[in-house]
C-alpha cells in the first residue's frame, strides 16, 4: 500500500513526463487546491473583465461596434461560464465562488480594477489587454490539467477573434482624426502601468507552486517579453509611443529592458484597493443579493422526470 507521499511523488512524475490529469483522477490536495484557486481566479477575472467594457456598449459610436462589443462581452461572460464549470468539478460550487467574489473574499486580475474612461480605453482593452491575456492563455494550453486545457482551446479561439476586433478598432482611431489618435495615445498612457502589472512581478521560477505542478508552464518574465516583442513594434509602426522612456530592445542581449512599474500600486490593487474595485464589486453584489429570488426559483423547481 502506497503512502500519500508516495502517490504524490508518482503523480508529480506523471506530470513531469507530460501526462495530463482528468477531473476524476486521484490528485494530491496541494494540486487540487492550487488548480482550483488558479482556475477560480481566472473565472472571476473573466466575469469582472466584462465590467469595464460593458460600460461602452450603450455608448458605442456605430451599430457595428455596438454589436461586436456586445458579442465580445458576451464571450467573456461565456469564458467565465466555461471556467467556473471546470472549477466546480474540482470541488467548489459556482454559487459559493460567486458569493466569495462579490464579497471580496477571492481575487480577480488587477487589470480589471481600472476605469474605462474613453473609447480609446475600449481599443486598448480590446487589443493590448486581450493581447496580453492571449499570451498567457496560450501558455495554459500546455497545462497539466486536461479539463482546463480543453476550456482554454475554446477560449483562445474566441480571444483571437477579440484581438482582431480590438486591432481593427485601434487602427480606425490611429488613422482617423487627430482627436481620435489622441484618444488612443492617451488611453495607452493611462493603461501602460496596469498592462505591465498584468504579467506579475518577475517571479522566482523555483518558488512558483503553479510552475511546479505544471498549471503554469512559462515564467512571468518570459510572457512579458513575448508581449513586448509582439505589440511594441506594432504600436511604434503607427506612431504610438508607450509612456516608458526605458522601454527599449537590447539587440546584444536579445531582450527588452523596461522601467519597473510601481509595484506598490500592484500590491495595493491585489489587496482590493484599485480605483474601481469597490464600485464594481458593490454593484455586482447588489445585483447578486437582490436576485436571490431568481436563484431560489431555479433551486426550488422540482426536476422534470428524465
Amino acid at each position, binding site marked *: 500500500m502506497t503512502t500519500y507521499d508516495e502517490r504524490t511523488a508518482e503523480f508529480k512524475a506523471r506530470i513531469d513526463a507530460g501526462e495530463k490529469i482528468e477531473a476524476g483522477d486521484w490528485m494530491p490536495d496541494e494540486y487540487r487546491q492550487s488548480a482550483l484557486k488558479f482556475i477560480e481566479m481566472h473565472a472571476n477575472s473573466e466575469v469582472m473583465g466584462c465590467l469595464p467594457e460593458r460600460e461602452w456598449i450603450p455608448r458605442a459610436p456605430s451599430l*457595428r461596434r455596438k*454589436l*461586436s462589443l456586445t*458579442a465580445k462581452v*458576451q464571450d467573456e461572460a*461565456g469564458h467565465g*461560464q*466555461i471556467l467556473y*464549470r471546470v472549477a*466546480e468539478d474540482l470541488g467548489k460550487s*459556482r454559487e459559493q465562488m460567486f458569493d466569495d467574489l462579490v464579497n471580496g473574499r477571492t481575487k480577480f486580475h488587477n487589470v480589471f480594477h481600472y476605469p474605462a474612461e474613453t473609447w480609446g480605453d475600449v481599443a486598448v482593452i480590446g487589443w493590448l489587454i486581450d493581447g496580453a491575456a492571449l499570451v498567457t492563455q*496560450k501558455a495554459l494550453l500546455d497545462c497539466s490539467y486536461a479539463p482546463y486545457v480543453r476550456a482554454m482551446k*475554446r477560449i483562445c479561439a474566441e480571444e*483571437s*477573434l477579440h484581438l*482582431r*476586433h480590438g*486591432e*481593427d478598432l485601434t*487602427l480606425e482611431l*490611429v*488613422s482617423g482624426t487627430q482627436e481620435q489618435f489622441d484618444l488612443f495615445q492617451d488611453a495607452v498612457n493611462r493603461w501602460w502601468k496596469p498592462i505591465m502589472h498584468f504579467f506579475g512581478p518577475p517571479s522566482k521560477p523555483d518558488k512558483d507552486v503553479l510552475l511546479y505542478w505544471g498549471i503554469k508552464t512559462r515564467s512571468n518574465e*518570459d510572457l512579458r*517579453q*513575448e508581449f513586448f*516583442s*509582439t505589440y*511594441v*513594434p*506594432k*504600436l*511604434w*509602426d*503607427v*506612431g*504610438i*509611443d508607450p509612456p516608458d522612456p526605458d522601454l*527599449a*530592445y*537590447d*539587440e546584444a542581449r*536579445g531582450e527588452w529592458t523596461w522601467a519597473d512599474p510601481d509595484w506598490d500600486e500592484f500590491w495595493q490593487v491585489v489587496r482590493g484597493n484599485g480605483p474601481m474595485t469597490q464600485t464594481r464589486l458593490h454593484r455586482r453584489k447588489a445585483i447578486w443579493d437582490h436576485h436571490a429570488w431568481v*436563484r431560489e*426559483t*431555479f*433551486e426550488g*423547481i422540482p*426536476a*422534470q422526470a*428524465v
Partner: protein
Amino acid sequence: MRVWEVLQRRKDDWEVVGGVKAPDLEIAMHFARETHFRRGEGDTYAVRLTGSDELHEVPESSGIGGVIDREFRRMDSFAGVGGKHREIHEQMRKQGRVIDRPRPPDLRQRRATGEGARA
C-alpha cells in the same frame, strides 16, 4: 439546480463540449443553444443530465447560430486587419510619424528560423 452536459454531434458520435447549470431539461436545452452554439457550430446539439444515460437532442435544428448575418461574431469578419496595419504603417512612414527604434528581428523571419518565443 443541476448540471447538464452539453454535446455536439461529430460524425456518428456525440462529444461533450461543456455543461450548463439549469433547473430542468427545457431550460437546459434553451440555454445550451447560446452558451455553446451561438456561432452555429453544428446543425444540432443535445443535453444530458450529469450521471444519466439519456441524451436529449434538440427537436429541430433551425435557429442555431441565428438566421441573419452575424458578421460581428465571426472569425472572418475582421480578417485583413494585418493588411490594414501595414497600410497605415506605410502612410505614417511617409508622414514621418513612425517610431523607429531597435526591435527584435522580424516576427515572420523568427518563425521561419524557429528562434524566439512562441508567437
